[in-house]
């Protein structure tokens, strides 16, 4: 199937406040899709709907469908725990587990997902994940260091490695660079491009340059509405909607 995720008429509420209004979009497999828009437009809420991270938020409610592999993830038959192993997430603030070493941070998802693995298998997966996250060379001799003692950029790549270790199909990234310096940002952006060969990546950003650099597709959100979604080149050169044009030319937001 071409699409990893299909979103149909997705609405979301916190209490009485509607934050997403009839969002419909297809997310292409093995591509980078950016979700862009000003603060408060619902972009973070939106990607958190894609792995049911809102399940435990009191007062949160969704309507509509999100199809993953053709099945609605909000159906009662879907176990959110299994869903999240297939749809991983990286957060805005790097959040390695504070009392764990770098190695344990990457291994933790495997350790708790029920399947028994030997030490050697664990070590192999940790190495593979750290390599994919472009962190292995820097970290291979310091795997016992606490994850929280790494630099911000390294912590974020550690979080990416941690997410990759459970072998997801989709990786959701909620403003993964907004807490990082330009050098670390460049590394993460490069990483996103590399990873998109194998993974479907959805990135939230309010940085248009970033969206332009890394995306195959861009979705522009405004006040809970999806204004338009298209190939990145099209959005940045010839947007269909006047509001998108105003946003990307810096006239608001």
């Amino acid at each position, binding site marked *: 199937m071409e699409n990893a995720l299909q979103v149909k008429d997705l609405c979301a509420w916190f209490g009485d406040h509607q934050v997403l209004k009839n969002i419909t979009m297809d997310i292409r497999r093995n591509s980078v899709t950016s979700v862009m828009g000003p603060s408060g437009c619902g972009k973070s809420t939106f990607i958190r709907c894609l*792995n049911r991270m809102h399940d435990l938020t009191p007062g949160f409610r969704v309507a509509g469908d999100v199809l993953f592999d053709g099945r609605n993830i909000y159906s009662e038959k879907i176990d959110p*725990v299994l869903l999240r192993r297939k749809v991983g997430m990286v957060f805005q603030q790097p959040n390695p*587990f*504070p*009392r764990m070493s770098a190695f344990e941070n990457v291994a*933790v*998802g495997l350790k*708790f*997902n029920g399947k028994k693995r030997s030490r050697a298998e664990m070590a192999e997966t940790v190495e593979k994940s750290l390599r994919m996250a472009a962190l292995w060379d820097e970290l291979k001799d310091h795997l016992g260091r606490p994850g929280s003692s790494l630099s911000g950029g390294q912590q974020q790549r550690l979080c990416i490695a941690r*997410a990759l270790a459970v072998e997801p199909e989709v990786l959701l990234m909620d403003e993964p660079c907004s807490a990082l310096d330009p050098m670390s940002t460049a590394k993460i952006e490069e990483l996103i491009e590399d990873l998109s060969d194998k993974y479907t990546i959805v990135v939230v950003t309010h940085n248009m340059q970033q969206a332009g650099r890394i995306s195959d597709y861009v979705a522009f959100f405004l006040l809970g509405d999806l204004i338009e979604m298209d190939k990145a080149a099209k959005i940045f050169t010839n947007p269909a909607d006047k509001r998108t044009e105003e946003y990307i030319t810096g006239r608001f937001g």
Partner: protein
Amino acid sequence: MESIAFRRRAADRVTRGLFALSAFVVILPLFLIFFDLLWKGARELKWTLLTDLPHPVGEPGGGIANGILGTLSIAGLAMAGGIPMAVMAGIYLAEYGRGKFASAVRFAVDTLTGVPSIIMGIFGYVLWVLPMKRFSAWAAAASLAMIFIPIVVRTTEEMLKTVPASVREAALALGIERWKTTLFITVRTATAGIVTGILLAMARIIGETAPLLFTALGNQFWQSGLDQPIAAIPLQVFNYAISPYDDWHDKAWAGALVLIGMVLAISGGARYFTRVRK
């Protein structure tokens, strides 16, 4: 300009001085108690104090070994029963406790923390000593557990609440079940704080005397069973101190010194667990 700067500096110094003075006055009692005990207890602070049974009046020597053992067994029993229950209740309040039941539990636990310890003693007496028709280590441990548990419930809850939501989110996003996230990620992150709370609560119950008067009763000999009256350091200190004999008074001071030493050691242990880790 200069005079304003001078006044500002003066005001700054005065307030800082007041804060520092208050801090000094706060720690003063600890030093007074400790040095007074050292002064008066040193005479009887011998090795035999820690190894020997009490001797009858007039007979020199003798120790509080059975009291030390008794205090450790009562506190140990209270903690063995109390820790799992208290920590799990704390986890419930921190991780799941949103509704009315949880607020009721919180209120009850806070109230329990404030209940005077002698009432816990009377309660232990009515609940355990009367039906079993004898004073016992079990009754004493139950009374101390009722003091211990509410303290640990609330410290566990507070410590778990200091774990950032981002840690729980990260675990859930990896597809780790909620109960595993709670037990193996969140609790693990807060372990040092939880252990500290347990140790401070332990220091608190180790010195409790009032509940033991109604439950442990005391004992001049080695313990023969947990269903028998049991010796404890605070009880021995109490009995020696109200006696009319000088050598018993000295032993009371020495016993108090041992007790303070234990509390200091436990607090030191608590500091060790909360030390900043690099």
